[in-house]
């Protein structure tokens, strides 16, 4: 065990494999959780038929998707059409490498962990666009174009909001930011931190293509956006990576703003991290099933007229706070 942990190659390999397996298993049951919650919000029951409380529904869905024929449209760019789903899930899962789950449970403690997470989160628009373009379908392409426009706009306030905990903690390492919060209080407890957290969560919803920012998908106008032509396992991979991205974003919010694995009552730190991530994911899901979709111009106005100036102001306040503190 110690040999595995001390050798960086083995550590990365073992930890990566475990992390990906756990996350993918989690994602399956998170679809169940979301469907149950959505059902309750809309006064219905959600899945009930397969297994106790419908718990085996995700497995049934996955088996069904795998049995189906993966159809590639005749005029599609075959290679890119094949490439887009695995690329999407790879980018979504890559972000998980820098999330600290406890003092030692961490795949890679990078000096530039926050930047790494933001880089892969921002790149997620890339395979989505490739899917839209390769499909050779006008709705898919329109969805892909919207995804890129939205992604590159919302990346700016997102990076700036993440800069607030970075400035306060004085480090770009995720573990370093959590350790700062263990020592001097959670970032959400300060006014500037709370505002930045809210701003980060908002931009993360837009980056992850979630309601109320799911304009690229917009099923009432674009069928299903970039995934219009995908069926069977290809579509399932897109759906899974959307959930994986949501969960990982919730974990990043917990680590940057909610104190990460810090907690009370001597409970294991891992449990605290999972609980906080679950809480943030609950909020995200709640928002999804309560709000309506924005229009394109509202989306851009919100970003450039409110979020970007607001984020700049927060960075300024955090900078002043740090320089006063000395």
């Amino acid at each position: 065990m110690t040999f595995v942990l001390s050798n960086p190659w083995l550590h990365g390999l073992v930890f990566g494999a475990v992390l990906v397996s756990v996350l993918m298993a989690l994602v399956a049951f998170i679809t169940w959780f979301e469907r149950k919650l959505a059902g309750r919000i809309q006064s219905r029951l959600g899945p009930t038929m397969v297994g106790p409380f419908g718990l085996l529904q995700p497995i049934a869905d996955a088996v069904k998707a795998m049995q189906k024929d993966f159809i590639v449209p005749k005029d599609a760019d075959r290679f890119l059409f094949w490439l887009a789903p695995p690329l999407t899930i790879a980018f979504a899962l890559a972000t998980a490498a820098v999330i600290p789950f406890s003092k030692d449970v961490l795949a890679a403690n990078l000096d530039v962990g926050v930047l790494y997470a933001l880089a892969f989160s921002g790149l997620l628009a890339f395979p989505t666009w490739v899917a839209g373009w390769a499909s050779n379908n006008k709705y898919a392409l329109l969805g892909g174009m919207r995804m890129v426009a939205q992604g590159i706009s919302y990346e700016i306030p997102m990076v700036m909001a993440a800069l607030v905990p970075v400035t306060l903690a004085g480090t770009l390492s995720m573990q370093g930011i959590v350790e700062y919060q263990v020592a001097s209080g959670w970032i959400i407890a300060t006014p500037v931190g709370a505002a930045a957290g809210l701003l980060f969560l908002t931009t993360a919803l837009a980056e992850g293509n979630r309601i109320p920012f799911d304009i690229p998908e917009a099923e009432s106008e674009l069928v299903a956006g970039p995934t219009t032509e995908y069926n069977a396992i290809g579509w399932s991979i897109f759906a899974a990576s959307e959930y994986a991205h949501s969960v990982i974003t919730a974990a990043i919010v917990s680590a940057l703003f909610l104190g990460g694995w810090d907690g009370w009552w001597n409970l294991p730190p891992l449990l605290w991290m999972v609980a906080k991530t679950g809480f943030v994911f609950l909020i995200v899901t709640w928002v999804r099933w309560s709000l309506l979709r924005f229009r394109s111009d509202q989306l851009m106005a919100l970003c450039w007229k409110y979020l970007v100036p607001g984020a700049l102001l927060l960075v300024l306040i955090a900078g002043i706070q740090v320089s006063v503190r000395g």
Partner: protein
Amino acid sequence: MLGQIGFGVVAVMLLFTAFRVVTARNLVHTVLWLGLALAVTAVVYVMLGAHFLAAIQIILYTGGVLTLMLFGVMLTHRDEGFVAVQNPSGRYVAGGLLAVSVFAMLAAAIVRTPSLPATPAPPVSTEALGAAFLTEQVLAFEVLSLLLLVAAVGAIVMARRRDAGEEGESQGAVLPERKVLPLRQPQPDAESAPVAARASGGDA
């Protein structure tokens, strides 16, 4: 030893992707190969211990490729099949000479440079990098910021529609002013009234 093999693999990948950037026949494929080449460059930075630079390379360059892809779509027609990148001037001799001379210049510079140690330099911490930006290199940093600001403002000015009232600008097609709706739009009665009348079957 392992490091040298790793570098060899990465270098071959970098050369191959760069080669595909110029030989791919489809503009979108070209841009995707470019994105891959830039990402592989980030791997080189990681191998040299420059983690900050690698992260920035991914965010700015590989991310910037996304924007290039939009140009790729806007400038080509997918339905015409693969777009052959044309060379309308056909100056292969002049182009070849230029390429050879640039190569000769770079090769001369590489040959004359005293060989550097093969081991990576001690990594510079991100703190030291940030401090250097705001102390020693502050002039260059500010000048670059100003340059970017000018570029951003210039782009907005060029992209803005010309006002119909401006003189001497009416030769170009003047697009009608688009009505941009506010975030919270009050519902004017004048617009909803006829709809209501039609819905109720009124013969207004």
